[in-house]
């Protein structure tokens, strides 16, 4: 598969995803990111004696919705357990999680390749606080995150390497975002990922697995898996059993592009789980399941298929358009307004996404961009009516974003209306021909393609407003006439 030299990689992922609730899992403190430290805390989430947890109805509902979106079964009854360990970010000395009876005992994710990734389980648990180690002599603890609702999504070791793990994460994130259960923002920590990696010869039983942590972006996940596969293969190939991989947790160091052992302390994994005495079992009613099923929208895989079948888009474009729900919704709304799905797809995949990614613009995502689906629809109509050229259209969209104005205004203010005026076009053409006698000579010598360079120069001279078809015809007429 993806490992070198006759080795096969076996990769499984544990993904933690914060649920988009207003409050924490077991108390009424707000679930929010970026607030001053220790301002979203109460007796329950800081583990004060005598405080008792009560489960958040919305967290359970969103968890059920996530399970349904991942094609999972929802257990009628589930239970909470205590996972005991000591760390400064865990004020109670235990985490409330689900071990023996998770609310979802199986689900799956279909990758764009058609590959099925089985999910072992999805369970509900509370997040820990945040420990900051790089600010001075002390470790600093902020408990705002303590008690935030998480679902942990555990995959079977079905992934054959770094690329498949990346594809799985991308799809999983898209599904969870579409379903509205989480914003899945890795930078804010609302999506986090641990990876288990082992390698083996094809047909062998599983060998020792290594857990990788500290993976704070999808590209880190990919790099860490590639590195770990190579590390394990090298260790086995060296042949010395003393150097073979051992079961351990390794932390990825992004700057050094390598991993180092973490913990490895004896007893570190002895969590002494026992049933949580402060919380009764949870019964998930058929009614709750059905209500949440109603909130699961058309998911990215279904949208991809529809874009290919109904709109005639390529698999690639359909994948780009559906990777996030806001882009996909934007695209569909523009198609509703303008028709012309292929044209709209071109504008969105090329120009709109370029504007979203433009580091010079102060917008992080499409939602923040002052660009509406109606703007793209207006532009598509203007281009179809030959009132604006495609190259001017690019400047129109940028103008809409930069000026916060509408398409018609930008076209007028920037003078981008396609010029049909034969005199104006001829004047631009004559000027360009006078500047480029070398190219004119090439064209006369039979290199008809060279005329493209002249068309480009005229379009530039016209600020993109000239009709390129007319420009070509005018240039060819003037050259042939020996002008």
């Amino acid at each position: 598969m993806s490992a070198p030299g006759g080795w096969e990689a076996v990769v499984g992922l544990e993904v933690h995803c914060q649920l988009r609730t207003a409050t924490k899992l077991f108390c009424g403190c707000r679930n929010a990111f970026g607030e001053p430290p220790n301002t979203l805390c109460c007796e329950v989430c800081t583990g004060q004696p005598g405080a008792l947890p009560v489960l958040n109805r919305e967290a359970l509902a969103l968890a059920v919705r996530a399970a349904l979106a991942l094609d999972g079964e929802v257990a009628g009854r589930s239970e909470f357990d205590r996972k005991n360990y000591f760390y400064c970010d865990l004020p109670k000395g235990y985490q409330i999680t689900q071990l023996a009876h998770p609310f979802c005992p199986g689900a799956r994710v279909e990758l764009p390749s058609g590959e099925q990734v089985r999910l072992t389980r999805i369970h509900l648990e509370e997040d820990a606080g945040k420990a900051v180690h790089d600010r001075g002599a002390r470790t600093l603890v902020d408990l705002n995150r303590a008690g935030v609702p998480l679902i942990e999504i555990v995959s079977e070791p079905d992934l054959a390497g770094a690329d498949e793990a990346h594809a799985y994460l991308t799809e999983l994130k898209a599904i969870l975002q579409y379903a509205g259960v989480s914003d899945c923002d890795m930078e804010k920590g609302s999506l986090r990922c641990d990876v288990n990696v082992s390698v083996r010869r094809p047909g062998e039983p599983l060998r020792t697995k290594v857990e990788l942590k500290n993976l704070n972006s999808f590209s880190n996940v990919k790099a860490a898996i590639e590195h770990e596969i190579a590390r394990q293969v090298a260790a086995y190939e060296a042949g010395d059993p003393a150097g073979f991989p051992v079961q351990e947790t390794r932390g990825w160091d992004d700057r050094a592009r390598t991993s180092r052992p973490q913990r490895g302390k004896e007893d570190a994994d002895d969590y002494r789980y026992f049933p949580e005495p402060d919380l009764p079992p949870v019964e998930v009613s058929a009614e709750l399941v059905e209500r949440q099923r109603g909130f699961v929208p058309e998911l990215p895989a279904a949208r991809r298929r529809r874009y290919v079948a109904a709109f005639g888009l390529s698999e690639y474009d359909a994948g780009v358009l559906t990777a996030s729900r806001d882009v996909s919704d934007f695209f569909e709304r523009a198609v509703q307004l303008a028709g012309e799905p292929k044209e709209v797809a071109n504008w969105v995949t090329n120009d709109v996404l370029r504007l979203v990614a433009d580091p010079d613009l102060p917008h992080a995502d499409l939602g923040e961009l002052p660009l509406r689906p109606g703007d793209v629809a207006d532009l598509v109509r203007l281009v179809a009516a030959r009132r604006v050229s495609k190259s001017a259209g690019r400047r129109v969209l940028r103008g809409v974003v930069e000026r916060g104005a509408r398409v018609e205004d930008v076209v007028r203010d920037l003078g981008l209306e396609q010029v049909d005026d034969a005199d104006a076009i001829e004047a631009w053409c004559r000027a360009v021909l006078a500047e480029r006698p070398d190219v004119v000579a090439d064209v006369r010598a039979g290199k008809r393609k060279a005329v493209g360079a002249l068309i480009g120069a005229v379009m530039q001279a016209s600020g993109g407003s000239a009709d390129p078809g007319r420009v070509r015809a005018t240039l060819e007429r003037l050259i042939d006439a020996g002008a």
Partner: protein
Amino acid sequence: MAQDEREQVERVARLARLELEPGEVERLAGSFERILEAFAGLRELDVGGLAPMTGPCERTDVLRADEPRPGLPPDELLRRAPERVDGFFGVPKTVRGAEDDG
């Protein structure tokens, strides 16, 4: 006292971050043995056909609405902190690396 009993007590103490005084290991080993004996007795009961019980009360589905409620003022929360640093709890440097145990 058998070596494995001593080790068991020491291990549980280590997991619970307890420092045992001399002589305590022996005393606790005796208590452990009595507790384990009691559980051994329970284990002999035939509970086939009984639903597992995780708590003494029969209620299920105790849920609350997802509505914010005021919590502790930060000053009150941090009043008993061993150390305060810019609104954080200050604790000895404890880099486990895997801070997100999830």
